């Protein structure tokens, strides 16, 4: 599938970054305001899908040489590692920990182990969505 839609391609170059930045925002804001790893991951995936629609899969594969299956595996590992980490602090499996820190530039910030778990969710969602779309899209 080779598309040559100049308008779509030009708009995509800008819009993709907006979507990606929005995805990052949504991901980090998730714990206090709407968002989270799942939506963030879906948004990221949709940005990549947009790229794929506007250009074509081989080009995007060159730009983003990511093995999405590995990405999924890494995400799952992060999630299970976060969940198991609590065992080493002698608290039940999946106990989260959080605290508030004064970080330079950010001011008082809440750092939460749930965020690590969410990173796992994020990576799995991106990985699986892209795996499915890429696999079906490449199949002729």
């Amino acid at each position, binding site marked *: 599938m080779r598309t040559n839609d100049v308008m779509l391609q030009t708009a995509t170059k800008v819009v993709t970054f907006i979507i990606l930045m929005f995805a990052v925002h*949504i991901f980090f804001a*998730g*714990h*206090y*305001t*709407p*968002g*989270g*790893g*799942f*939506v963030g991951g*879906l*948004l990221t*995936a*949709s940005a990549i*899908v947009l790229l794929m*629609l506007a250009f074509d899969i081989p080009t995007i594969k060159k730009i983003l040489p990511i093995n*999405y*299956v590995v990405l*999924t*595996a890494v*995400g*799952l590992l992060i*999630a*299970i590692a976060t*969940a198991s980490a609590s065992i080493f602090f002698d608290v*039940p499996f*999946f106990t*989260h920990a*959080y605290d508030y820190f004064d970080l330079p530039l950010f001011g008082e910030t*809440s750092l*939460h182990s*749930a965020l690590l*778990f*969410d990173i*796992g*969710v994020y990576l*799995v*969602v991106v*990985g*699986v*969505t892209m*795996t*499915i*779309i890429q*696999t*079906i*899209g490449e*199949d002729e």
Partner: protein
Amino acid sequence: MSLVFLIFIPILAALFIPLLFKRLGQIHTGWFVLLVPAALFLYYATRLPSVMEGGTYVSELSWIPSLDIAFIAYLDGLSLLFTLLITGIGALVVLYSIFYLDKHREQLHNFYVYLLIFMSAMLGVVQSDHLITLYLFWELTSISSFLLIAYWYTRDRSRFGALKSMMITVFGGLMMLGGFVLLSIMGGTYSIRELIAQAPELAQHDFFIWALVLVLLGAFTKSAQFPFYIWLPDAMEAPTPVSAYLHSATMVKAGIYLVARLTPVFALSEVWMWLVAGVGLFTMVWASFFALKQKDLKGILAFSTVSQLGLIMSLLGVAAAAYHVEGAADTYLKYAAFAAIFHLINHATFKGSLFMIAGIIDHETGTRDIRKLGGLMSLMPVSFTVALIGSLSMAGLPPFNGFLSKEMFLTAMLSLQEFNMFSMDVWWVLFPIIAWIGSVFTFIYSLYFVFHTFAGKHQPEQLPKQAHEAPIGMLISPVFLAALVVMIFFIPNLIGDWLVKPAVAAIQPFLYDSPQNVDIHVSAWHGFNTELFMTLGIFAIGGLMFWTLRKWQHLYDLYPDSISLNRLYDEMMLLSDGGANRFSRIYMTGFIRSYLVYMFSFMTFIVLLTLFLNEAFQIDFNNLAPIGVYEIVILLALVGATLTILGSKSRLTAIIALGAVGYSVALLFVIFRAPDLALTQLVIETISVALFLLAFYHLPQISRKEERMKFRFGNALVALGVGVTMTLVALSAHSQKAMPSISEFYKETVYKEAGGGNIVNVILVDYRGFDTLFEIAVLGIAGIGIITMIRLRLTKKEGQHENK
């Protein structure tokens, strides 16, 4: 160091094996592995002196405190004996395997990882005091045995043998788990020690006999007792070091261990005694009889192992009889437990060496078929000597350790005459007679094994390889074991004091306070008594029958294969396999629309039934929110889009309309102030429309014709049912509050305890993190599934073999 951690050392060591194999491939990986059992053996040996005095060690590691499940390592005479066997024989077997398995051709990283997993599992079985963790380790031994039998997984027989052993032992394991659960219900504890303490009360319980039978099923399947023994001969497809280790010295003795360990709990029941002794003795005579039918060296050894396990099992049954006799410590019954443990040690030594010799013969001549072998005596003198020592010990000849324990076995069987509970006057006689017959056949197959291999005429043209003596490294382990066989004959009481008596005290704690009170002295000569005449009879009759073996061995061929237990197993497997297949074919059509119909119908049925049973059809229209203009507009769009899908002629229109449905729902979420849901729904819709467009090309041929779908009454009914059900559920949920809403709980705790602000996301990552974890796991599996379906599609490479 805490004992309980030692159990896990082999499994932790297994983590490094692939690395060592990849990076240091020029050194045989076995040398690194050897360190583990050797070091563990030395460490555990230091515990011997205090355990000999009757000391015990307990070490605990909490695992699931809320369910009261913990790893408890309990080291007493019995578990220490098994531990030393596992680590000691383990070290010898690893040493042997270094020369048996070629470092260039074999997948050593697989082999040693499985072997180390097995080692941990086996240590866990014999040291666990907690029934649930014992079960866990028990099944882990089955799994590692499965992997090891199927080590040469390209061979059909290996895979068949692996599956068979797994089917039978895991079946037994599950039965045993049932028995354990019953025990814990009766005793209120999972701890074996605590159960033993309340054994008399347990015996009165209704479940007692069930627990007993179930636990014995586990033990009998694992220890290859009749009629479950059929997996063991097929397990001989494993590499010989594995057969020597798992299928003769350790894993198959797990059942013996379990029976010995639980004897104090169950021995008060006569059923236990008769079952264990009867099944054991029958297995002994049955397997020794059929060992002579075998043509494969390892087949003979497999049947002989089954037979010897039966012997030990029957001794444990007689040992249980001691619980029913007043002052059993003064009668001959006391010999049974001692003989069982003593023979277990002896069996490990002589059978281990025999297996290694069988492996050497296979390795150096290329065949294990006893009909092709013969005359190897002069070519392989060291192997012959070892095989001779092992076989004669197995046959029960002096001056080898087998003679001592065989003699005690006969003593124990004869001692049943002292046990005259319900008119045993006549029946007890059967036991010594059967034992004697079994021993005669044991004598014959022992000689058959060694003389038909090493004596007779050499047939070089029959052998795939030029026969020669094995390399020195391969001989170290069997020679060492053979030396033990001879040594134990001369120092039986040393072994008795150090190893056997502490174990006996653990089997019969009501008889003895400490190992020193076990008043048994082993001697090779005890005058002219019944046992001696029985033994002489065995030698005479056995010798005569071996002499004429060629004349009557073909009688075995008269036994039809069609009524064997193996045939029964095969038929059962075929039946269950084919039956399950036929049953699935009935409803697995391969069309996702059929599956959706099943799912929706059942969902409707179950939900409606629940609503009906709970009388939840009360609908209350109070407290309804006012309906605004936006809602009406969106709902109209929603309904309109849905109707468009149903009526559309082209699939493209349907896809776009489906997108419209999704976006309208998202808008509804916005209006009802659920931004999280709205956001997710919007993105999902976008991506799924993109997906639909991608997959458009691949959708079934029929629908690509521009044609409207036919009206189907069944589907309409299901659709209507789902709609009605969901409406009813929504109305019913609104009208009656059976329980207070959980959202209040979330509102209260979300900031204070979970440290977050967005309830939806905190539910996902924290409150119900488990769900999310499994959901993303399922997602990952779905992704892999799609890859396998599309990229690895078989139709693409038609005509090719699937493995290529």
